[in-house]
């Protein structure tokens, strides 16, 4: 295996030339985006440095309670992020369902992945558990965010069609079937598309990271395939749970549209 190239501080600093280049472009083009670029660069640097130290601490102090705690914090942050990302007013019921779907979908697929697919020992080994959980939770968060927007917009925009279907004796499930299907489809499509380009158009971050850190590309690919399938499962499970429970919040006990 090739020797790993450890970056010197000046080498890392030289990479910031790309930020300077971007700042130059926006300045010359008169695009008022300098502030955001600087803030994003600083945040990215500080967050990653902090994460690096936290992960180092966690890897050296492997403990099931801490691993679970980290997952809980990630889940809470992801759910909060969905509420913030979706620029719609969400009912308390829908917010609860988002949280339940996120938690159930990601946890069940994560546990299957940890215990069956890669079978790590001990199961809480943070070196595996935390990055894999991050990828499952992050992708499911994006999927549910899309699903929420599509479901809420779909029901609001097609209120007239849904009411007409109810008047014809449709159950809420049948009256909103097409909208629920569209929301699910839109939410999982980005994950499916990313699978299509994988390995040809781009090398995924995790795989690139493993290859750069000296791991054989074959091992990196094996992990990447397993991770990609796991992500797909986690996104699909979280989103289907969300849409299946979510549409019901728009109807009351008398099967009337409640918006």
């Amino acid at each position, binding site marked *: 295996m090739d020797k790993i190239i450890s970056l010197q501080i000046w080498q890392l600093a030289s990479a910031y030339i790309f930020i300077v280049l971007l700042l130059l472009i926006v300045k010359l083009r008169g695009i008022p985006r300098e502030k955001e670029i600087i803030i994003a660069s600083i945040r990215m640097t500080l967050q990653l440095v902090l994460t690096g130290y936290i992960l180092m601490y966690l890897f050296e102090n492997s403990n099931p309670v801490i691993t679970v705690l980290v997952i809980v914090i990630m889940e809470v942050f992801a759910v909060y992020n969905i509420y913030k990302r979706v620029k719609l007013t969400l009912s308390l019921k829908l917010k609860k369902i988002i949280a339940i779907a996120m938690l159930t979908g990601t946890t069940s697929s994560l546990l299957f992945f940890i215990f069956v697919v890669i079978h790590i020992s001990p199961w809480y080994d943070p070196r595996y558990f935390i990055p894999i959980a991050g990828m499952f939770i992050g992708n499911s968060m994006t999927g549910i965010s899309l699903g929420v927007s599509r479901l809420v917009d779909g029901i609001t925009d097609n209120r*007239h*069609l849904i*009411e*007409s*279907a*109810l*008047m*014809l*004796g*449709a*159950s809420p499930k*049948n*009256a909103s079937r097409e909208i629920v299907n569209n929301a699910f489809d839109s939410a999982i499509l980005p994950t499916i598309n990313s699978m299509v380009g994988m390995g040809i158009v781009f090398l995924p971050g995790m795989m690139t990271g493993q290859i750069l850190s000296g791991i054989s590309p074959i091992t990196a690919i094996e992990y990447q395939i397993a991770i990609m399938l796991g992500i797909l499962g986690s996104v699909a499970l979280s989103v289907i749970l969300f849409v299946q429970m979510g549409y019901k919040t728009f109807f009351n006990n*008398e*099967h*009337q549209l409640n918006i």
Partner: protein
Amino acid sequence: MFQLENVKYQDILDITQLHIPSRKITCIVGESGSGKTTLLRLLNKMNSYTEGEIYYNNNPISQIDSISLRREVVMLPQTPAIFSGTVEDNLLMGLKFSEKPLVDQKQLLNILEIVHLNKPLKENANKLSGGEKQRLALGRVILMNPTVFLLDEPSSALDEKTEKTIIQQLADYSKQNHKTLIMVTHSKNIAKTYADYIIEINNGKFIKPKGESNG
């Protein structure tokens, strides 16, 4: 068929007592915003009244499952929805939604004749004019063969001549098939010509019945 007792819906409708007979044509007339559509929506539980009780065949509708009720008491809104697909898809949609057995093409063509819609079954429904869409939606409801028709201004998008033909066909159809037809109409002329029973609503209050009720 329907009996309303002390029914209130928010501050829109307030009806002390009202009887709507079965197997008759009942027209609901009144000014815009007087609560006519709300009354129809209460009868098939698209809205729930805030006070009082409505009885359907002597059973309080609050105790009848909404979906089962809507499969017997079908409502056609003033601007009916046209679903994506063909004329045939739209005709069959009501049967599919209400989980009733589908019918053959001969019966579909027969329905198109009743509503005077001379269009091929494979025509894209979204390309029809407003009046044609209204007749297509009416055909969809007739095909469901419900016990009660709740029609909200079923001829609002039709010209005078077509309106007369369609309402006449509808009246004949409901008489021949012993259906209960409850229809909101802006036209006092239609009400006078076709209704066995007229309900006038003003400011959410039921004014007076006209005609005999024997339901």
